[in-house]
């Protein structure tokens, strides 16, 4: 195992997966196929300690996520703990299972921001994608409650073949809900999304059109709403700088307390993950083998090793390199310079009108 010898920079963000329980069954969920069981979940006190350790490490923001974070009955106490630790808190929620009463409570406990997922502007399609009848109505209602409380609202829209033709109306919907921000998040193929890839994959033409639409929507709505977009990397020339580089910017804690450099890292064999029940967050960040595995650039093979972009995109995604090319050390096959790039083209072409495998335990 190689390291670059320098001390690791301070992380900025913590993704706290409070639970893998969720009422929805979205086929693109990034959670692993093997979901953590309820009785393995970290308790309130442990999360509170983890938040304090996160703040000491220099982490600025926590993203309270899951599964569905509102499935945790102790969500108000968890929000309070994040606030008391001095962390900026984002609630990443489906809004299904989040009552107006709980929302008021967590706002009082100091929650800074709410992100609500919306599956489609077309409500029938939205409920079909979520696998939950009535989800769309609940989400819009809770979005209204968030805005009434004066909290900033982001609408997250995961984009794939079933809704990619409605990017414009999805942004209009976010505007009508008084969101300050909308995320147009093209599906990334991990976890359940990988399982459902053939059913989710758009065509290159659809993606190019959506990218152009986002550009003109940005110009049209400048100053009214911020449009953030997550690019669909299967059709890209260069890879994304996955999580801002392995073990550089962020870390992910699973419901059972395992600390991962990214949400998909468990697919890579041979990595040793440490648990917050046994180690401090600082020890895990600086010394756990999984974090050291791909930090810096010493681990790289060609073409990444001598590529002028290596400190920009870090060779792309290790998990994707493993899943597509069978080796976590090679260039992300999404990169046109990867010798495995043809595999990505084949996978992108493998589209099927097939039923979703809904997320479930």
């Amino acid at each position: 195992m190689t390291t670059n010898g320098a001390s690791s920079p301070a992380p900025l963000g913590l993704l706290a997966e409070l639970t893998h329980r969720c009422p929805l069954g979205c086929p693109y969920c990034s959670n692993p196929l093997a979901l953590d069981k309820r009785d393995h979940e970290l308790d309130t006190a442990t999360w509170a300690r983890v938040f304090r350790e996160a703040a000491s490490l220099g982490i600025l923001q926590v993203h309270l996520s899951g599964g569905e974070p509102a499935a945790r009955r102790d969500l108000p106490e968890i929000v309070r703990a994040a606030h008391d630790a001095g962390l900026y808190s984002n609630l990443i929620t489906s809004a299904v299972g989040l009552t107006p009463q709980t929302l008021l409570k967590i706002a009082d406990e100091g929650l800074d921001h709410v992100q609500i997922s919306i599956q489609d502007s077309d409500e029938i399609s939205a409920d079909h994608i979520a696998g939950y009848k009535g989800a769309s109505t609940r989400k819009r209602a809770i979005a209204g409650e968030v805005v009434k409380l004066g909290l900033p609202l982001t609408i997250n829209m995961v984009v794939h073949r079933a809704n990619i033709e409605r990017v414009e109306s999805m942004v209009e919907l976010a505007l009508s809900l008084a969101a300050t921000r909308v995320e147009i998040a093209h599906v990334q193929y991990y976890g359940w999304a990988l399982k459902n890839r053939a059913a989710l994959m758009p065509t290159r033409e659809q993606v190019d059109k959506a990218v152009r639409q986002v550009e003109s929507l940005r110009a049209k709505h400048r100053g009214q709403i911020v449009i953030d977009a997550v690019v669909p990397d299967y059709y890209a020339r260069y890879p994304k700088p996955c999580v801002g580089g392995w073990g550089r910017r962020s870390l992910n804690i699973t419901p059972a307390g395992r600390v991962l450099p990214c949400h998909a890292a468990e697919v890579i064999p041979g990595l040793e993950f440490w648990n917050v029940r046994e180690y401090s967050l600082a020890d895990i960040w600086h010394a756990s083998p999984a974090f050291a595995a791909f930090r810096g650039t010493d681990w790289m093979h060609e073409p990444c090793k001598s590529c002028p972009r290596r400190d920009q995109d870090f060779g792309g995604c290790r998990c994707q390199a493993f899943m597509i090319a069978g080796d976590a050390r090679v260039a992300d096959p999404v990169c046109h310079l990867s010798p495995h790039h043809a595999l990505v083209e084949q996978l992108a072409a493998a589209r099927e009108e097939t039923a979703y495998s809904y997320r479930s335990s």
Partner: protein
Amino acid sequence: MARPANQLSNDACPRLPKGVRLTHNEAQGGWVLLAPERVFKADVITAEILKRCTGEATLGAIVDDLANTFAAPRERIHADVMNLLGGLVEKKLLELD
């Protein structure tokens, strides 16, 4: 509506909205502006401007205060403040009362 930097009125009172805050963090090496799922590094000058954006002081008064405090030419401060705040308004990181 979108507002180019030169249209920010001197009588407006700039304010960081709920969910946006300026904080100093040792481990991150200085001032940071925290916003929904985003972090921006802020240099010392940006921090001095934003500290004064409380919703109580007008833009004109803020520029005067900075010019006095830092003994700097008012026109230069005015241009810098307008540029900074115009950009933040566009990114929904600042409100003008």
